[in-house]
């Protein structure tokens, strides 16, 4: 039974007229590798290596892929927590790749991140109340009584009791800490949030609460999300479209239902077949596409198709030539020489 939110979502999907909020073109982030006593640069980790996508207003783009493939780095470059090595990032049509100082500070008000490691956003010496209040104070949004009320409201929204506002981060369980990070990111009601594994540390019931909350806020405030997660079922639930990343590149991007129904890239297929099932009998019986071979290093990616060293369908052509980023169906793009062949 389609609910209101599902219908709202269907509209977004089909509505090409909805303005694009964020667009990245050929975006790259390389980290230098320093070795030896003189710390000389001996190479670079190509964490994100030329990706293109856009996200429309009020849309949720899911980003999935193997550990270390560059998801967090992509999120951080987009929010300008790292400077891009190459490429263009446009927010509401404006190039933000080089903004600094005051304009960057203003940009931060509209773009926020829920960090994968709560440690990255929670100062251990600040109480939880002041951690959540900090962005509100810094941007002069609220003070005094209104500030306290807003902090209570935010803590409640993520299922934490406002009574604990005076506690320090270490006095919470792992899942509780993750939610403090979410409350902080929501504080300024930004337009765009990069959610980096926001629910990974939470039990399923609280996962559901947080995901419902993110969806409510999206409807109420028109938020746009980049939702990074390895939980394929949850991504399917929350995302309108999903991008699959492998070794610094996006290999497939499609509306989520279509991607799950008919994955076209061999890596996406392997990923889907490995998802755990919540049933011990099925779990013991089912078939998995097990990928063989080591994950290549992003410092030295294989030539041609980056997946060719592990792809069950690889041919000599694959390591000779990089596959094009082709639109096989409306809105469904794949980077594989053979995708779509019967």
């Amino acid at each position: 039974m389609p609910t209101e939110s599902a219908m709202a979502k269907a509209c977004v999907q089909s509505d090409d007229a909805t303005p694009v909020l964020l667009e990245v073109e050929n975006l790259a982030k390389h980290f230098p590798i320093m070795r030896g006593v003189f710390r000389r640069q001996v190479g670079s980790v190509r964490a994100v290596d030329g990706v293109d996508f856009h996200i429309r207003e009020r849309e949720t783009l899911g980003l999935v892929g193997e550990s270390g493939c560059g998801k967090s780095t992509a999120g951080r470059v987009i929010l300008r927590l790292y400077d891009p090595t190459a490429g263009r990032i446009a927010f509401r049509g404006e190039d933000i790749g080089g903004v600094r100082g005051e304009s960057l500070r203003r940009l931060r008000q509209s773009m926020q991140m829920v960090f994968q490691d709560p440690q990255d956003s929670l100062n251990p010496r600040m109480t939880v109340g002041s951690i959540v209040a900090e962005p509100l104070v810094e941007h002069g949004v609220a003070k005094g009584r209104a500030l306290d009320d807003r902090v209570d409201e935010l803590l409640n929204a993520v299922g934490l009791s406002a009574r604990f506002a005076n506690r320090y981060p270490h006095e919470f369980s792992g899942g509780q800490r993750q939610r403090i990070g979410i409350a902080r990111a929501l504080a300024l009601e930004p337009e765009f949030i990069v959610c980096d594994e926001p629910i990974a540390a939470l039990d399923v019931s609280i996962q559901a609460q947080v995901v419902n909350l993110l969806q409510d806020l999206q409807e109420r405030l028109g938020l746009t999300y980049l939702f990074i997660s390895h939980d394929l079922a949850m991504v399917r639930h929350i995302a309108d479209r999903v991008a699959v990343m492998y070794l610094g590149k996006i290999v497939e991007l499609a509306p989520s239902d279509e991607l799950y129904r008919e994955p076209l890239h061999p890596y996406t297929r392997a990923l889907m077949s490995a998802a755990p099932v919540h049933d011990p009998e099925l779990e013991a019986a089912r078939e998995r596409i097990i990928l063989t071979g080591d994950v290549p290093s992003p410092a030295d990616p294989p030539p041609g198709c980056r997946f060719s060293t592990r792809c069950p369908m690889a041919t000599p052509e694959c390591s000779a030539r990089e596959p094009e980023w082709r639109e096989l169906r409306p809105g469904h793009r794949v980077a594989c020489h053979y995708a779509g062949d019967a």
Partner: protein
Amino acid sequence: MGVPLSAAPAAEAVLAVEDIQTRFHTQEGVVHAVNGIGFELGEGEVLGVVGESGSGKSVTMLSLLGLLPTPPAEIVSGSARLEGEDLMALDADRLRKVRGARVGFIFQDPMTSLNPVLTVGYQLTEPLRLHLGMDKAAARERAAQLLDLVGIPEPTSRLSDFPHQFSGGMRQRVMIAIALACSPKVLIADEPTTALDVTIQAQILDVVKRLRRELGMSIIWITHDLGVVAGLADRVMVMYGGQVVERADVKSLYARPKHPYTRGLLRTLPSPDDEDGSSGRLASIPGHPPSLLEAPASCPFAPRCEHAFDRCHRENPMLETRGEGHEVACFFDVDRGAPRAD
């Protein structure tokens, strides 16, 4: 799966834990985090631990390993016999030796336990040199093998990197490698794979299953991922409000959950094959977890339980055997749909 297990692992329990009670003294009062937890872990057994965020899973394990600062923590009672020797009665020095060598522990937050200013290689080789007396070269070689085992590309060169140069999931895998370094008798893993995508998760689970088979390692696996539990655990223990509310072998727990909380938990899962995957809201368990500021005098789940009746608000149910190897702490009989007769 794999190793056959007797229904009652009691006779050859490698680890026997009894009646752990842990409290925290805080500004708001005393937090009753763990209220009388006990369990047994058989040789080569995998015990899955699931439960609500904040239900005391981490604090239970930290208590028995002597890893909580006292104060603010107070361990009111409890014993944890590892092959007959009570860990909770050991002095700090002896306990430290046990922790590195006979018990491997994977912390929930990799960044709190990895030292940011030491290379990953140093942190991996240290226990090998300390507990196994390896020389520097041998320890480095073994360390690289361990990183390789957990799927980190170019393991040898990554030994000289610092934790912040690894992705979230890689840090977790470094933690896993450190915990496995000395081939411990018992591995306690606290949400070890939350940041890992399914393919790497499958690889890690394979490594763990192999070690269990080859070394007879016993494992406690704390997770909120019911899919992982279904595929890995022999028995499952469900926690709520600092207590064990249900414990059974994995098949009967999934097929016939008896505690209302467990049943709620299993209902909240979105299914990857769900054609309806993207529509509507996720089911979550309504209400909030208990504040734990009072000693439990009634069923901790009562305020959120659809079956609660007067007795539940007066008495705290004990864990009792109901059906072979299936223990439940609840006054209600879900099979008959009525309060229990006794």
